[in-house]
């Protein structure tokens, strides 16, 4: 199992994504973005799962998805790269 954090452009995006995670059966939590991940102070969703969760329907609200690794975070998806 891996730990992921998804950050968003809006608080509501996080709420919707949390529901998506629930549908996938992942344990997810809506929380402030960790300082170590970003200097922005938005809302993120932290969850545990085999794979990261991404859905076309929610793509325009997602800023980035990272996987928590031993020395920090590994970027899985970033909207800036799209």
């Amino acid at each position, binding site marked *: 199992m891996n730990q992921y954090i998804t950050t968003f*452009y809006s608080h509501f995006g996080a709420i*919707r994504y949390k529901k998506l995670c629930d549908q996938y059966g992942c344990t997810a939590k*809506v929380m402030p973005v960790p300082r170590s991940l970003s200097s922005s102070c938005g809302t993120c969703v932290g969850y545990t799962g085999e794979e990261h969760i991404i859905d076309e329907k929610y793509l325009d609200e997602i800023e980035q998805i990272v996987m928590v690794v031993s020395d920090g975070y590994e970027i899985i998806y970033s909207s800036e790269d799209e």
Partner: protein
Amino acid sequence: MNIKKEKITIIIAAAIIGIIASLLVVFGNPTNMGFCIACFLRDTSGALGLHKAEPVQYIRPEIIGLVLGSFAMALWKKEFSVKGGSAPVTRFILGAFAMIGCLMFLGCPFRTVLRLAGGDLNAIWGLIGFALGIGVGILFLNKGYSLKRTYKQVAAEGFVFPIIQVVLLILVIAAPSIIMFTPEGGGPGAKHAAIIISLIAGLIVGALAQRTRLCMVGGIRDFILFRESKLLIGFVVVFASALICNLILTGVGVGTLFNLGFEGQPVAHTDALWNALGMILAGFACTLLGGCPLRQLVLSGEGNTDSVITVYGLMVGAAFAHNFKLASSADGPTLNGKIAVVIGLVVVAAIAVANTMGKSKEQ
């Protein structure tokens, strides 16, 4: 960095910020106004001739320092990221009305805390109003409010605002005749610490605020939304450290930095209702903006051009507030100010509704 470490960092940073704010008064700033983002942007607007209220005209080096401190820290930590394009016109309007709310109360959220630390009990109404305004904003956040995403912009765009701060620094040092400064004894604008002291204070606070994401709106918002107390602790520690510092400095006879009560408080009035309503407007607008005026300055330094637009909105709002006699004085609020705050609440609510509509159904 884990949560515990983050909390310790924010406690230390906030304690330093509280001490600096208290000391700035000793060095010459108006009482209970070691820092006030609203007042200082208003003073800067006046110095640049955007309004003609002579008692409040001075280019405040603290503002320059806050932006440049954040800018330097963001560059150093490789967090300088140039982005924008998230409803800039709406942000400008929200910034202007946030300022009108602040100038009804006579202080930004930062000064609310500092006024309390100086014993000004009128600030309690401001704080209650501010929290209520954030609560209203959160209702919209939960219903889908969003000003949509930001986009990466060219690096040069992010350097413009810090460069403008350097130009302002040159202007305050050179003091050419085109810049308007409040004459000695002419009002709060004439009360200021030496430029170098104000600048260094701003640089330190800007750097610390960038590292800790200190935000007066964020503190209350995160606590209501997630029961996350980290930023709120920062808020409380700024109050506690400024209070202790004020009490010590008053005790040793440096000056009267603590005076408990409602009456006769510096740059304040006693109208509880309008103190609260002004800060409801400020809290509501700032929640929709995603941060308090201090945070907007810090984000401007990090390369967020939406925050730059918001700061310009705050400055223009300050100019309107004085040109149209919307700003309160020690005598209390003005009729024009009351009308403007009501209009502001309607406009901010309309912005909230317009940027929320239809989202709940998407859920």
